[in-house]
C-alpha cells in the first residue's frame, strides 16, 4: 500500500514537473491570404499542442528586418523581409510538452519538397522562401521570439 502511494506521488510529481514548454510560430502571408489559417492551426492542435497566444498583424519592414536580424547579409535576407511584410500574418505562442521539437516535427523541413507527407509545409508550403509557417528552432529562440511580439498579458495562463 505504501509502495502504491509512493508510486502515485512520484507520478503526480513528475507530471507537474514535466515542462510545459512554449514555442513561437507565424503563419506567413501567402498561407493567410489563401485561407489556410484553420488548416494549419488544426494540425498543430491535433499534435497535442495548445495555442496560448494568438494575434493577426501586418509587419512593417522595420519589424521584419529586426526579427530576422541574424540573417542580415545573407543572400535571401531582402526577399525574406519583403515577403514577410507583404500581407497580414498570424503570430502564435504554442504550449505543450517538448513544444519546440514537437512543433518543428509538425511543421516539417524548410523545403516543402523535402518535408514529410502530412507535415504543414508538405501540405501548404510552396517553396523554400514561401513555406507557409515559421517555427522557433530552439528554446532560446522561442523565448526571444515570443517576447519580440507578445507581452506576458497577451499569453493565456
Amino acid at each position, binding site marked *: 500500500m505504501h509502495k502504491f502511494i509512493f508510486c502515485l506521488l512520484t507520478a503526480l510529481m513528475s507530471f507537474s514537473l514535466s515542462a510545459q514548454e512554449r514555442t513561437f510560430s507565424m503563419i506567413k502571408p501567402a498561407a493567410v491570404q489563401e*485561407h489556410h489559417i*484553420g488548416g494549419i*492551426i*488544426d494540425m498543430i*492542435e491535433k499534435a*497535442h499542442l495548445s495555442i496560448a497566444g494568438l494575434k493577426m498583424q501586418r509587419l512593417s*519592414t522595420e519589424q521584419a528586418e529586426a526579427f530576422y536580424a541574424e540573417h542580415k547579409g545573407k543572400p535571401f535576407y531582402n526577399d525574406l523581409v519583403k515577403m514577410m511584410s507583404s*500581407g497580414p500574418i498570424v503570430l502564435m505562442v504554442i504550449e505543450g510538452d517538448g513544444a519546440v521539437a514537437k512543433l518543428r516535427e509538425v511543421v516539417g523541413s524548410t523545403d516543402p519538397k523535402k518535408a514529410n507527407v502530412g507535415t504543414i509545409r508538405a501540405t501548404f508550403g510552396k517553396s523554400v522562401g514561401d513555406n507557409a509557417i515559421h517555427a522557433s528552432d530552439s528554446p532560446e529562440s522561442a523565448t526571444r521570439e515570443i517576447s519580440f511580439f507578445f507581452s506576458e498579458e497577451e499569453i*493565456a495562463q
Partner: protein
Amino acid sequence: MKVERTLSIVKPDAVGRNHIGAIINMFEDAGLHLVAVKMLHLTKEQAEGFYAVHKERPFFKDLVSFMLTGPVLVMVLEGVNAINVNRDVMGATDPKKAAKGTIRHTFASGIEENAVHGSDSEANAKIEIEYFFKQNEICARTRGKAKSCCSCAH
C-alpha cells in the same frame, strides 16, 4: 450580394478542447476570411459589457461566468453575406437542434457551452466589432502594397 463583416468568438469550452483550428477551418471553407483575430482572457467587466443586452435575462450571470472560465478567440470574419453565412456555419444555439456539419453540432456540449458566438445582425456586428477591435487592428486582405490599415498598418 454584399461583402460584410461579422464578429465571431470561439468560446472557452472550444478553446480549452483545442478546437480553434477546426473551427476556423469551417469558416474558411465557407468563404469567410479572417481579417482580425486575437486571443484574450475576458475580464468580468468586458463579458458583462459585451452581453449587456441580456442583463435582465435569467441566464446572464451563468453566461458571464462561463465566458471567464478560460481564454477566448475574438475574430472579425469578412465575406459575402458574412453575417448569415456565419450563422449558418455555426448552427442553432442549442446544439441538439443544430444541423449536422455545423460547428455547434460538431463541437458544442450544451446550449450554454456552445463553442461559438456570432453577431445576429448588421447593426450588432458593427457594435460587437468595435467593442473588441480598433479600426487599425483590422487587416485588409491584400498582399503587396499596404493599404492604410493596421498594426497591420504600414
